[in-house]
């Protein structure tokens, strides 16, 4: 069996997020957000034709899981990512 080539880790995947006050997530995958620990914005590749603009949130969910989600300000969709 041929060995697989190197592949990226931590690629974002689509997430079901219900936004709450001021655009912060209120629920991720139907689990309520207990609190938002951190929030930051990443703007990158603005000099290319495919710029990245993401608003990240690190949250603690009601079941105790930590989740990092971001709202893609270009594609207008929510993603979850291991960060």
């Amino acid at each position, binding site marked *: *069996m041929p*060995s697989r080539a190197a592949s*990226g*880790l*931590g*690629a974002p995947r689509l997430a079901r997020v219900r936004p709450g006050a001021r*655009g912060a997530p209120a629920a991720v995958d139907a689990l*309520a957000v207990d609190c938002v620990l951190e929030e930051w914005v990443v703007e990158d590749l603005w000099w290319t034709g495919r710029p990245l603009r993401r608003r990240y949130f690190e949250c*603690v969910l009601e079941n105790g899981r930590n989740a990092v989600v971001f709202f893609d300000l270009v594609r207008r969709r929510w993603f979850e990512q291991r960060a």
Partner: protein
Amino acid sequence: MLAEPVALAPEAGREQVVGEVSAAAEAFGVTPGMRVGEALARCPELRLAPPDPEGVRALWREVLDRLEAVGAAVESDRPGCAFFEADGLRGIHGGHLEGVIAAARRVLGRGIRLGAGPSRFSSYAAARRARPRRAEIVGQGGVRAWLAPLPVSFLRARPELGVVADTLERLGIRTLGELSGLPAPAVAERFGHPGRLALDLARGRDTPLEPRRPAEPVLERLELPEAALGQQLERALELLIARVLARPERRGRSLRSAALSVRFVAGGTWRTRVTLRQASADAGLLATVLTPKLAELPAPADSITLEVEAFGPPAHDQARLVEERDSTRRVRLSEAVRQARQAVGDDAAMRVLEVDPDSRLPERRALLAPWTDA
């Protein structure tokens, strides 16, 4: 007391705005949420009553317990306002909505306002319009028409819609009926997600209720012999952490969030909630996280309480009995990789290669590459 101009003082360390106000204070133009300076300028005789978040919380918890005793699964984001599904309760309260309302009134007493509607928002609006002795009921079919004449300021019931309500008023959209007549794409374009939510509420739709989870109270309180502040309070907190961790109800679980509260010598209480980035049962870590909160206290305390708000997974705080040597572990790992590859192929073992560990984009930090030297 309510005949005098009185307002609830701001909580220590929070925004300097007044809370609920008495009718006499309202007559001077003082409103809840007004900055303290402005409130005192409007009414120099205004008396600021110290807030008691601990007392309010305990009292409100009792109210919710009473509602749950009649079978209601209650949702409540803030003291003074609670919601529950009435449909499932009809069977045990006479088979009709009026029976459920009567049961709720029986356990809550007089002076409360009850409203019923097909959505959370419509029942909130109905309760605001209800008289103390008579519940307001909004029918399933006519909810949009019933909401239509109400002002858009009702949207402020949802804190995230405060800005939307302000903007709608400035744009001349005064009622929920005018809002519900606007095209959805235009509202979404102008206000984003909050706009869509406001539109849904105005049209009688709402998000599902999220009833509170059963409480599992684990708290430890320490009465302080004399007014304490600073280092003395820190020692008291360390003692409380040790006591909470020793409680049998913890059953080996870690702590995910905790609330710290104190009662001031001069009256009033203060409460703050801390959620840990990673659930832990380590006394040192809990002290590191909670101790800085004590610096926010504005006055000496005569009692301090630590309460567990949520537990995390079981704490893996058991030490290994025998430490393995590195070389032994490496040989075992190589053998495991070899066996796994024989069973499922070369992709069974991969290596994480750090490419740009400091990148702001997580997907650029590491790659998964084939394991080569096993």
